[in-house]
């Protein structure tokens, strides 16, 4: 029971971690959050299903197209639902991104239908035994992808010019611009990258669950809970918080029952934030006096 809960919790937690990483990226660059992340995740799953299953495209092309589509959606979203509001010093981007997410969800219901569909995958067919527990290869892929992408992002922001530009923009946009960094382009890139990451989460989870137009809502909320729990500032922190959230859910389901799953996960978030208001792995900003 214990081993099964760990495996199951880590697999679902890696998904929350990927979504949380998406929230983190836009936050550190633009101090804004894309609340349409859940819908972008759904978009990734629905597009790859439609291209692969309905139209019969080869899987690599279907995945690449889905990710490019999600990145494109991120760019459009930044342009119409975030930038105009931030330029006026308004926080209305918050509601605008929520609205954009609902728009996408309803458009998907109209075009894709409301009926759940099953996404076949060779990686989700035959389990391998690990510590006496059956694990699908896709679970391992998801876990490695979540942790790997957090690591790549952490290294990239410190070791590449683009990564340094990302961090420079958040530390001081005006100074970054004086140094020749185009803050607008960096923000657009952050939204595209964040949306592509979340789209990847949708592509990865599609074979493990049912593909539906409303599948992203709960994931979006839980991904944001993980981002807050970890502390929005740290990439590895939000991914670890996602894993923690997944484990909490799996253990609550295993030892208390599925009725306690949501209570346990969100109860954990409230208690953790009460004890550490800036998240489990975040730090309070330094105040110069």
């Amino acid at each position: 029971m214990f081993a099964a809960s760990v495996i199951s919790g880590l697999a679902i937690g890696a998904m929350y971690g990927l979504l949380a990483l998406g929230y983190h990226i836009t936050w550190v660059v633009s101090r804004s959050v894309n609340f349409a992340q859940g819908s972008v995740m759904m978009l990734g799953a629905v597009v790859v299903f439609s291209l692969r299953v309905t139209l019969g495209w080869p899987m690599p092309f279907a995945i690449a197209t889905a990710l490019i589509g999600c990145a494109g959606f991120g760019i459009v979203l930044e342009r119409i639902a975030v930038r105009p509001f931030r330029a006026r010093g308004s926080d209305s981007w918050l509601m605008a991104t929520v609205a954009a997410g609902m728009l996408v969800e309803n458009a998907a219901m109209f075009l894709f239908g409301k009926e759940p569909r099953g996404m076949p995958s060779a990686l989700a067919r035959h389990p391998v035994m690990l510590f006496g527990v059956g694990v699908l290869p896709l679970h391992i892929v998801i876990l490695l992808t979540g942790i790997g992408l957090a690591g790549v992002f952490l290294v990239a922001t410190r070791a590449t010019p683009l990564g340094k530009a990302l961090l420079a923009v958040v530390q001081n946009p005006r100074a970054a611009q004086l140094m020749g960094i185009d803050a607008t382009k960096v923000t657009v890139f952050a939204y595209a990258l964040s949306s592509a990451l979340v789209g990847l989460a949708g592509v990865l989870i599609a074979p493990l669950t049912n593909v539906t137009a409303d599948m992203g809502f709960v994931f979006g909320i839980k991904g944001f809970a993980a981002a807050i729990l970890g502390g929005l500032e740290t990439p590895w922190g939000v991914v670890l918080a996602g894993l923690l959230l997944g484990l909490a859910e799996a253990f609550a389901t295993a030892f208390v029952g599925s009725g306690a799953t949501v209570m346990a996960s969100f109860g954990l978030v409230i208690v953790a934030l009460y004890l550490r208001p800036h998240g489990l792995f975040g730090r309070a900003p330094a105040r110069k006096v």
Partner: protein
Amino acid sequence: MTKWELIIAMVFSTPFRRLTTASISRALAFAALTFAPHFTSAAEPASIPVGLVAALSGQSAASGEAITRGLAVAIDEINQAGGVLGRPLTLVRRDDESNPGKGIAAARELISREHVAAFFGGIDTPVSVALVPIANKEKTPFIGVWAAGTAITRNGANPNYVFRVSAVDVLVDQRLMRYTVTIAKAQRPGLMLIDNPWGESNRAGLEAAAKAAGVSVTGAESFESGDTDMTPQLTRLKMAGADAIILVGNAAPAAEVIRSLDRMGWAVPVISHWGISGGRFPELAGPSAEKVAFIQTYSFFKSSARGEAVLAALEKKYPAIKGAEDIIAPVGTADAYDAMHLLALAIAKAGSTEGPAIQAALEALPPYDGLIKRYAPAFTAANHDALGADDYIMVHFAENKIVPVQ
């Protein structure tokens, strides 16, 4: 005040100096709305509307479509034979989205605005349970054609306006347990139940059925319709020594149960209530879907003259149907087909479209040879369920088709 007096009052109650084209237009519009039905009724008889409140979208959309097809084919037959009381029947559908709140709003609208003579229900027991008080309060017959919750028809109301041409949980549970013990040779079944009133209703029924069959239920686990991993619940049942799983849930969450079993590598017999036939269960659950035995009230593979005639009518009306194997969720189609004919008989017997008259007529119908069986009679004052335990059959999926278990 007559309608004419009302129109005159609308025009002339306005002071003459304010008598504008707007007030005259209002009166003309009222007159048009008031008298239009009388003008058309001279040309052709007004139709009798019958309603359907069912899941037409979402996880169980296939069930709503199956019910619609059964009703539509029956209505075509009735209308071609001259209708009822000399009037054609029309079907007015509303989508409850498997949501009791939306179901209640839809039923109220059908009764108060569409003036339906009666209405049919869909797959979801929670929705049907919510519709029971409305049917009894508004004195409008409500005929369930899928949801099997025991309390839907056995609701304690007198007079009771709720009828059903479908399975009843308490009887289904006995049949499922009998299959589990005698065919699957299990002595310690575990229960996997959807966490809603339907799951609760079956838990009580299955535990009673197990006691009657002389076996013990190893454990009862519940799951939410949005759960993406059922391995924790299944692991608990496995550790408790379950030698079969009895599953109660609709297609999408039930498919998650089957996928979780695959993931665990636990090859255990699964016997299911019929909710899995209301969606794309084989697609969602994968190859292991074929191992699940489940209950139905009818199979179009069962040969009979009436069955072949209905199949031919379905093929003609829905070109995607090329044979019995193409009928999605056959139980919904068959139950709805018979229920529509029984309702038409009741309206004819009542000689009226008033709810109380139809209710009384439904309780006193003559014997009727239907698609599923010979109803002799379908309902009585004491029994509002047209189908009994002997009318159920066990089936399984074979390459997307629902075929009887050999």
